[in-house]
């Protein structure tokens, strides 16, 4: 029974499901560590998903599709930075604004330019000679049977952790997120650091969108993400502002989802109460066990102004 449920394909599915959460969550982590909450992730994801999809649909080029997602992510990230850093708008509500914008605009463009749901052929699964064939514990299927963007997402986790903890840029990000006044007094350009992290976050959100529309789902439709970006924001809290924490949250969350799929695919009748309660129970458990020693950026959502 257990072997029937916990098959290699469940774990492979978990890894695929986790991919967009990782992209978006890591991007959001950079922003939040520097003190900027971006609630508009989902909107940027939708725009990234649409632009990459449309580019692939129109040109057939996956590379151009990826570039389109990066470009729109960059632009909307810059806009978010402008609104929250330069205009110093309330981050809670301006993020909702960006979400509504991305949601509406991607839908509008979709209707004008495409019309009905179409599919494209997105990033193919990569066959990695020896690795993909490992039968032992299903390792080949679980880890080495995915498309490029899946690998990229997982690769970005250690890279981001390294950047945050071991580089001068990371030190500046953390300083700005914890105490912008002190960072400013130490000669760090608070606004510039925040512009960089928020724009980076936009870029990652764009990638997250592309990972859906041209790598995992290969379709576009209105509200393709259906709130996935908000869950990614929640995962940043869940992961205590650490890239590996975000990864763990994304995997846990995706595992529960994959498990539910598998349970219904093999025709098991598990009471649906279980399915309903699972995310809630997991959330609460995670909260209780979450270390209180967090890296929480104390200046999160606080705009910075000299002489205040």
């Amino acid at each position, binding site marked *: 029974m257990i072997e029937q449920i916990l098959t290699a394909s469940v774990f492979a599915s978990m890894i695929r*499901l986790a991919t967009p959460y990782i992209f978006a969550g890591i991007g959001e982590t950079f922003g939040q560590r520097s003190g900027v909450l971006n609630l508009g992730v989902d909107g940027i994801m939708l725009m990234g998903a649409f632009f990459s999809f449309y580019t692939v649909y129109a040109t057939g080029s996956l590379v151009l599709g990826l570039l389109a997602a990066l470009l729109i992510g960059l632009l909307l990230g810059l806009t978010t930075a402008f609104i929250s850093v330069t205009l110093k708008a309330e981050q809670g509500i301006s993020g909702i604004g960006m979400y509504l914008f991305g949601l509406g605009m991607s*839908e509008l463009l979709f209707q004008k330019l495409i019309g009905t*749901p179409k*599919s494209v052929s997105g990033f193919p699964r990569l066959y990695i000679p020896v690795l993909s064939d490992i039968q032992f514990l299903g390792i080949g299927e679980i880890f080495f049977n995915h498309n490029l963007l899946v690998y990229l997402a997982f690769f970005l986790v250690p890279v981001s952790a390294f950047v945050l903890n071991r580089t001068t840029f990371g030190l500046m990000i953390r300083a700005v997120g914890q105490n912008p006044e002190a960072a400013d007094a130490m000669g760090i350009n608070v606004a510039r650091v925040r512009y960089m992290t928020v724009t980076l976050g936009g870029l990652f959100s764009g990638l997250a969108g592309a990972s859906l529309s041209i790598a*995992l789902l290969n*379709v576009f439709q209105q509200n393709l993400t259906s709130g996935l970006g908000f869950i990614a924001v929640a995962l940043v809290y869940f992961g205590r502002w650490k890239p590996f924490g975000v990864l763990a949250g994304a995997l846990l969350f995706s595992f529960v989802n994959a498990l539910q*799929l598998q349970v219904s*695919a*093999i025709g098991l009748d598990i009471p649906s109460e279980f399915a309903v309660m699972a995310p809630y129970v997991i959330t609460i458990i995670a909260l209780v066990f979450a270390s209180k020693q967090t890296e929480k950026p104390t200046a999160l959502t606080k705009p910075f102004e000299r002489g205040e």
Partner: protein
Amino acid sequence: AQDGPFRVAAVAPSATNDLAFSQSMYDALLAIQEEMGADNFEFVFQEGTFVVDDAAVAIGEWAASGEYDLIIAHGSQYGSVVEEIAPRFPEISFAWGTDVNTFGLDNVYAYTPAADEGGFINGVMAGLMTESGVIGVIGPIEVGDAKLYVDGFKEGVAASNPDAQVLVTYIQSFSDVPLATEAANAHIANGADILTGTAQMVVGPIAVAKENGARWFGTQSSQAELAGEAGVMFQVYHWEVVLRDIIANIKDGKMGGESYVLTLQNGGLVMESAK
């Protein structure tokens, strides 16, 4: 897989209780099972599979197991997967929708509803029934069968009553009941005495029609019970028709190559009137 019961595996993007797209297929499979008997017909249904790669894995595993006679990919986003996997398993039959494309493969069926047909009929009746000459339509987003239905409805009204005004509000959401309700209220305030609409948020407009003595035309499933005396006519999808044909074909050895359209003619679309 010729001996024993006929076995079907199906994958769909949303939940089997979505009261809409996925559920309509699930209900159809249940209906077939009822007809043929649980001994002769078995199926598994993987719901909530919005990640195409996951659907690909499921479809691949089902195909490779050789245990299934028919694999249904219920969602237009699964087209590329079917196109890729089906040629490797010529002895297994695949069906996907909603679309008409079988990719020129002999073991692939495609299916789609001609929602504009029932829309037209509803429209003709609405055109004849309206006293105020104003008819309100509440749609979700201008795509797919919602668009087909609304366009058919408009043509129907134009055919029976060229002077009647058909006013369409797309509320840009499949689920926002409060907004759909106020859209219906706005139509009523502007003189509409007949309302219609599509997608799951129409429960709100139906209540508005009832409350204001207006009449309601529906689509996708029967809303007769909810609409009460406001209800007039409903276009109901019956995927069983397609499934029945496909199953008979497979038993005869014809594995695919055909595309089905649910129509009034073939009984896939049924007009049900309110009591």
